[in-house]
Every structure is written in structure tokens, then in C-alpha cells.
């Protein structure tokens, strides 16, 4: 679409200063427009946050019978015994294990790819870029199904399990890791590394003392993302899991069997945990910024 319709150039410099503009010509229609926008935003935020509130509330529910979809009465039972349901906690353990391995492998491989793509020129770059982009653009069910077809054809349907899940998770995390680290690398000031070289740092020293610390936040973000993707994936996991049950698979199955309040407890812990991590990192960032 045409993006050049409006350019700031023709406007004379004087009205660009903001103060006089604010006083002029605020029609009542614009006032209503602004407040409709505010109201819509509030409503949509409620829509987005409502399930989280429900999860938190329902984690204190004493379920009647098997299902936990309607409120019965207040209880802290589920919080006191989060592992009362053994299968739930063992599936959580499996998910954590797979998540950690997938994160480590995909972050390592992804960091290498990101460095190669940003720091080196070579043929086939655009082809490799396309190959890296495709897994993010393919519907999950297609990736799951094609991967299962491969495993059925090679190792046989009976061999699906821990390693096939992990292989699949590394595969779909890889592209996201590369994109995240690439953006950090591309945004880095190249003069810092040149300065280190000017000061007689060897390539290894430059890498360890300058480059790595500067990229580290990007690598950490990529690893976190990979972990979050892995631990939350249902579709591809279901296709590659064989007889194993990961945490998302347990939840999915529990809709048919029984839905214990403990699931809501874990959901609440995940939410509170993320908020604490974000709050702490924000505060730390502010402290570091003020100290300088």
C-alpha cells in the first residue's frame, strides 16, 4: 500500500511544536472517539485476562465429583497437596526434562546459526533464511503429522517416546531461537569489538570478554522462549509421543477423565512465577540504570 501519502515535510516548522496544537479544535466527536477507544480497550483486556482470573479462583475450589468446571466451595486442599494426583506431577516432570534438553540443544545450535548468518557472508544465505523461516510458518499439525510419517517409516510406530518428542521440540524451537539471537546480534554496536581488537585482544578474548556478554541477554531470552514453547506444546508432542504423557497431554486427556483443581494450582503458579520474574528483572534493570 502507498506509504508516502503523508510526509512531514510540507508542514511549516512552527505548528510542529506540540503545545499550540493541543488547544485547538478538539471536537466533542473526538472526545467520544477517545473514550470509546478506552472503553473498547478495557473490555478487550478483560476478555484477555478473564481466564487467568478464573484459573486462580478455581484453584481454591473444592470440586464436586470429577469435574472442576463449576464453583462449589472454598478449599485450600489443592494448594496443600499439588501432587495428590501422581500422574499429573510425573507428566510435569517429563515435560520439564524434555523442555530442559530441548532448550539446551536448540539454544546451542541456534546461537551458532545466528552468528553464522549475521557475521558471515556466504552463498545460499537466502535459501537458508527460507529454511529457517518455514518451521515458523507451517501449521503445527502439519509438522507433527509429517514428522510422525518419518518416524513410522524409519524406526517404526512402537519406538516413539522421549527422544522423538525431544527431537521434535528442538526442531520447532530452533527457528525462534535463531530469530531472537539474530535481532540482538544485528542491533549490537560493531565498534565495540573493533575497539577490543585495537587494544590487542585476541579473537578469543574479544569473543569471550566483549561479544558474548553483549549477546548474552539475547541468548537468555531465546532460551526462555524455547523453554516456554517446549513446555506448552501439545499438538506436535501428541504426534510424536507414542505412549508417553507430557503435561499438556495430561491436561488434554483430563478433560475427558477428570479435571482436578491441582491443574489450576499449577496454572496459577505459572502465572505468578512469570509475573515475579518480570517484576524482579524490571526492578533490577531500573536499579542498574540508576546506579550508572
Amino acid at each position, binding site marked *: 500500500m502507498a506509504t508516502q501519502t503523508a510526509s512531514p515535510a510540507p508542514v511549516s516548522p512552527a505548528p510542529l511544536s506540540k503545545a499550540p496544537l493541543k488547544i485547538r479544535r478538539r471536537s466533542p466527536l473526538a472526545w467520544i472517539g477517545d473514550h470509546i477507544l478506552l472503553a473498547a480497550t478495557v473490555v478487550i483486556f478483560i476478555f484477555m485476562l478473564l481466564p487467568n482470573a478464573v484459573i486462580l479462583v478455581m484453584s481454591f475450589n473444592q470440586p464436586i465429583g470429577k469435574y472442576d468446571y463449576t464453583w462449589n466451595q472454598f478449599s485450600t486442599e489443592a494448594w496443600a497437596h499439588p501432587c495428590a494426583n501422581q500422574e499429573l506431577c510425573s507428566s510435569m516432570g517429563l515435560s520439564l526434562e524434555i523442555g530442559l534438553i530441548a532448550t539446551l540443544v536448540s539454544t546451542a545450535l541456534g546461537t551458532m546459526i545466528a552468528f553464522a548468518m549475521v557475521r558471515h557472508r556466504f552463498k545460499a544465505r537466502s535459501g537458508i533464511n527460507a529454511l529457517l523461516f518455514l518451521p515458523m510458518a507451517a501449521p503445527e499439525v502439519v509438522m507433527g*503429522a509429517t514428522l510422525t510419517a518419518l518416524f513410522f517409516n524409519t524406526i517404526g510406530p512402537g519406538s516413539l517416546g522421549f527422544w522423538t518428542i525431544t527431537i521434535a521440540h528442538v526442531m520447532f524451537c530452533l527457528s525462534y531461537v535463531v530469530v531472537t539471537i539474530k535481532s540482538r546480534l544485528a542491533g549490537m554496536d560493531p565498534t565495540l569489538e573493533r575497539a577490543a581488537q585495537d587494544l590487542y585482544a585476541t579473537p578469543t578474548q574479544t569473543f569471550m570478554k566483549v561479544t558474548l556478554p553483549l549477546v548474552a541477554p539475547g541468548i537468555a531470552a531465546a532460551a526462555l522462549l524455547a523453554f516456554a514453547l517446549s513446555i506448552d506444546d501439545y499438538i506436535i508432542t501428541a504426534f510424536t509421543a507414542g505412549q508417553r504423557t507430557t503435561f499438556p497431554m495430561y491436561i488434554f486427556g483430563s478433560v475427558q477423565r477428570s479435571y482436578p483443581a491441582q491443574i489450576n494450582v499449577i496454572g496459577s503458579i505459572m502465572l505468578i512465577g512469570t509475573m515475579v520474574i518480570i517484576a524482579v528483572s524490571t526492578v533490577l534493570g531500573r536499579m542498574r540504570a540508576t546506579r550508572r
Partner: protein
Amino acid sequence: MSTALLDKAPAAEAPPEDRRPRRNITPWVLLLPGLLWLILFFLIPILTSVSASVQTGNFDDGFKLTWHWANYADAIKPYWRQYLHSGIFSVATTVLCLALGYPVAYFIAFKGGKWKSLLMALVIVPSFTSFLIRTIAWKTILADNGFVVRVLNDLHILGVTRRLGITVGTHVLASPGAVVCGMVYNFLPFMILPLYTSLEKIDPRLLEAGNDLYCGTFQTWRRITLPLSMPGVIGGTLLTFIPAIGDYINAQLLGNANTGVVGQSIENLFLRKTDGYPVGSAMSVIMMVGTLVLVMLYIRKAGTEDLI
């Protein structure tokens, strides 16, 4: 899923001082393990699927490549409803996400002030709770004795939506409406993020200039803001549509027997039938090609091939 896709890093240019014409193997050493992984577990599976889609057999006797093209007929004819549902649900989800996501992104970008980052955190943070638990929470919200159903009933909306085929009887749960509600909920952040990134980049002085030239709020939006935010609209649409067309979680958890989508059928054919996987492979090949064609058409129409 992720926000990473949205940080469209400008491809960094070559270090200018590197003039030596020698062949460098370092990048290939760095690339090899990761690329091998993607080739082995992403590209080759696609080829295997194509070959699997013309096989016949069952789990006990094994599968043989018999060039049984009739699998494709079996993958289309009995499942036309599922294709239709997948199409309708994903398009409806994308349109609704755009309609709900645009005002939110606009508000945060232009009126967010110092609350910008907090509001964006509120968009993203909930996604860190398992999406399945959040989706199942909609069962509680939309339950028959819940407040949503009561309000809709009191306002006599359920009668209208029932006639339109969005809800079933006096229930909201287990209806197409609930499926789309869950999908919109799940994919909304993927729409808001790219929209926000592109809206945030717009110089507010341009909007002031529009006002100066006697554009109303709406006209300013239509003639300045909207064209400038098109990259976000296109990015968000793709990020919503592609996962939505493959999604079957919402159809399974919030829908009923009549809201089946393609993903559910593929899963059934692969995991619950002993001889279904060739037909399932054919279905996933159809889905892959279909999605690719739709996305290409959309990108061509939207005119931004360089977007990805």
C-alpha cells in the same frame, strides 16, 4: 508461541572491512549441525509424508509404497465438512482478532503513555500459563449456569445466535461460537504484537499534520494511520491465520461433534486408527499445500513480498 517472529531484525550488512576474498569455512561449521537438524526433521519428513500419502497397508503388516493415489480422494470426500469448518473458523478468527486487536494496539501505541510497557506485558504475560489450562477455563466462563450465558439469555441474544448457527440450543459451550471465542482468545496476542510494533513506529506528528489539514479522527486513521500500519496488519493476519487453520484444540475442547476440523481428523487417522496414516498423510499434504497457496495469494494481494 512467540513474539520473536515479530522482531524483524534488519538483515545486518557485511562487516565492511572484510575485503579478503579467501573462502571461509567458519560459517558452514557453525551452520552445519542446526541445518542438518532442520533438514532431517523438517524437510525430509515433508518428503516422507508425500510418499506416505500414496502408501497402503496397516500397522500389523507394514505399509508399502503402492502409488495409491486414491488416498487423496479418501482424504477429501468424507472430510469436506472438516475442511469447511477449518476454513470458516480460521477466517472468522483472523477477522475478529484484527477487529479486536487493532483498537487495543492503537490505544497502547498512541495513548499508552508511561503505561505502554505494562500494558504490553499484560498482553503477553498470560500466555506463560499453559494455553490448555487457559482454554479449559472458558468451560467455566461459558458454562450454562455462568454469568455470560445468563446475560446473553436475558438480552435474548442466544435466540438470534442460535438461528445463525453460532450457538446450540440455550448453551454457548459445545458450539461453533465457543470454538471461535476460544480461538480468538488464544491468537489475539499474535495479532496485537505486530500491530503494536508497526503503530509504535508511526511519527505522531504525521497525525497532527493530518489534523491540521482538516482531517477528522476517522479520516486521519483511514488515510494516514492505516496505510502506515499495513505491515503490522499483514504480519498479524499471517501470525493468526496460519496457526488458526491448523488448530484443533479449541474445536476439541470447546466444540461438539459437529465442529470437527481438519487437525482433529489428521490426529484421529494417525493415532487412533491402525491403517489411517496414509490417508492422514494425504490430508496433511493437502493442508500444507492449501495453507501455502492461501498465504502466497494473500501476500501477493497485500503487495509485500519482502515482508518475510
